[in-house]
């Protein structure tokens, strides 16, 4: 029971962190079909901007300033870069963001150095919120939960209650029709891209001091974010939310469940040991491959339901 509760809590926090990162990418990917390889790089920039701002002014202003900076950067990238590349096709856009990721990583190395920077949790949040069966639950993780929940709420409200949001929703599923109806689709694209980048920046502000802020953080965070986005499905923010939570819970529970395929086979009477063929593979306990399960799940869902969990549009 204790294990269940603690794992639920852990899985929830991790899932929400994934959602913060993936939400921006879902919007961008769904709307523009651009697999933005530089998304994790913008997340990294958000963390570094927050580090600089919190060093000179404070953490709370950084919560606002860093996402705004990232959003601005995203708008510039979209207006002067992606827009031009758009007519050359999706692969061209993908490679554009690829090249951008290289440049951003090198720029970060040159400006802030190659080592991790001491971007820390603010003192106001650096205490324990409550205890769960003897384990501390830090206040900062509660703060992360709060921010990501607010983020989800804000995006949902904006998409469903504002005019711009309705246009965006329409463009998520029928981009050409929206253009035909006379809306300024390029401006919508820029807004969405900038918004997605701002979300990534906010994720960086929150996640940068929880994890480690260093130049290789984009490279390590990248793949799992794509998995979440595609798993959740194109055109669906709710799908992204659910996918993040699922991934969070799967990875967390895999760590605490000490079973392997060999155990499953033993349950039906087949004995497997290290010596049997493929024994090396079958005796692997779940905790060892926990972090790989998202990729397995991705492959499975794409095989049977290529639009993802709640996708509204086929890829």
């Amino acid at each position, binding site marked *: 029971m*204790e*294990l269940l509760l*603690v*794992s639920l809590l*852990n*899985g929830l*926090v*991790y899932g929400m*962190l994934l959602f913060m990162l993936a939400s921006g990418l879902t919007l961008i990917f769904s709307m523009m079909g651009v697999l933005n390889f530089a998304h994790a790089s913008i997340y990294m920039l958000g963390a570094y901007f927050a580090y600089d701002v919190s060093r000179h002014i404070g953490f709370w202003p950084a919560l606002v300033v860093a996402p705004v900076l990232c959003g601005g950067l995203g708008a510039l990238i979209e207006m002067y870069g992606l827009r031009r590349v758009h007519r050359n096709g999706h692969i061209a856009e993908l490679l554009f963001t690829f090249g951008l990721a290289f440049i951003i*990583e090198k720029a970060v*190395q040159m400006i802030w*150095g*190659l*080592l*991790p*920077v*001491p971007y*820390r949790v603010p003192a106001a949040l650096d205490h*324990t919120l409550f205890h769960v069966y*003897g*384990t*501390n*639950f*830090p206040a*900062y*993780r509660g703060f992360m939960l709060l921010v990501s929940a607010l983020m989800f709420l804000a995006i949902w409200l904006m998409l469903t209650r504002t005019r711009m949001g309705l246009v965006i929703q329409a463009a998520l599923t029928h981009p050409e029709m929206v253009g035909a109806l006379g809306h300024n689709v390029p401006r919508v694209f820029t807004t969405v891209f900038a918004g997605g980048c701002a979300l990534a920046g906010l994720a960086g502000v929150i996640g940068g001091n*929880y*994890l*480690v802020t*260093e*130049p*290789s*953080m984009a*490279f*390590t*965070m990248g793949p*799992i974010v794509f998995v979440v986005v595609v798993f959740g499905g194109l055109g669906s923010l709710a799908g992204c939310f659910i996918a993040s939570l699922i991934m*969070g819970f799967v*990875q*967390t*529970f895999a*760590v*605490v469940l000490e079973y392997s395929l060999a155990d499953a086979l033993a349950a039906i009477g087949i004995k497997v040991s290290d010596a049997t063929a493929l024994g090396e593979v079958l005796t692997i306990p779940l*905790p*060892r*491959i*926990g*972090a*790989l399960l998202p990729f397995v799940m991705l492959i499975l869902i794409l095989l049977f339901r290529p639009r993802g969990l709640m996708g509204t549009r086929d890829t």
Partner: protein
Amino acid sequence: MIRFKWTAFAFALAASLLGAAGDALAQGTIKIAYTDPLSGPFAQVGDQNLQQFKYIIDWINGRGGALGKKFELVAFDNKSQPSDALLALKSATDQNIPIIMQCSGSNIAAALIEAVDKHNERNPDNRIIYVNCGAVATELTNEKCSYWHYRMDAHVGMKAETMVRALPKDVTKVYLLNQDYLFGQSVERDVKAFLAKLRPDVKVVGDELIPLGKVKDFSPYVTKIKASGAQALLTGNWGPDMTLLIKAGMDAGLDIRYYTMYAHLGGGATAIGPAGNGKVRSVMAFHENIAVETGKTDTEGWTKQFRTQHKFDFYAAGFRTIFEFLQAAINKAGSTDPTKIAAALEGLTITDMLGYQVTLRKDDHQILSEYFVGVFTKGVKYDSEGTGLGWKTEVTVPAKDLDQPNTCKMKRPS
């Protein structure tokens, strides 16, 4: 005209790179090739190593170098790929450079050992020695050992034994957590073996392997560690796998000692932060407070000067030992011919900068030197990376305790 200059520049560079510019030794310097990741996600490793090498080479050249010639480092970026390291090797042999060094990545080291062996066998007039400054997989001086390979850092087995020897008497329950690839699996295996041999009273209450570089949230692992009642966590993790694990443990209020192998390297102190006070330990060859503790003021002054010039602490005492060995061997051999240097190096003993006797063992070319376990704590003279906390020696393990048996069947050149 600019265009002409660029063409000339490009040609000159191409010519020099392609080895047409002549012998590595003719200009009066002893060139040493060095390859490590200098770009990409692991660039900080090569970068910090380069800075420390430059400091050491300046110092040793100030002491006359070897045979009256100065040392010169020629750096090659291998981008963490064995194929690029082998390309660097080709470039080095093209220029008849006698020695190549590499510190990061046992996969690259394995590739280099094989390639150097084959090259030396097929080109006996243009040999090269491979000095391994940091690739620690145990089999590199056991199954994969080679006459032309010299390892100048303690290997995994030795580090594991040091870690076990540093466990205090009151710790009886330990948890093992390592990265799921050859290195991490070796740490797991060796730590268990040495626990059985040296501390049979200690019980291993948990044993985990995690996929390399993929886990971002260690809180479920921390939950398991807590449930097991372990008093110490032994891990060989490096990079984010180490720092995130420790951070998660501290966040959850885990009352445990962390024994690591890499917390003292660049970035570790910053990432762990002041919260790690008194909890985090690391198995290391050196930290800047050892000289203070043992009263070696000249060494203390030397490393102090490094930190005033650079933004990180000096940790690579082993690099200085390398050059002291090379200086001694080249002077003893009276030549910069790799075959003669190799013969002079094996079995050589020198005194390192902390005053200990260090030997290059003849049967497997593994260095035997003292090793330390330090604890990250307040109240030391030199702090790490501006955090206010630094390393303090908890346990010193003398070299003779680490003289482990080996299975090397070395093929010597006739």
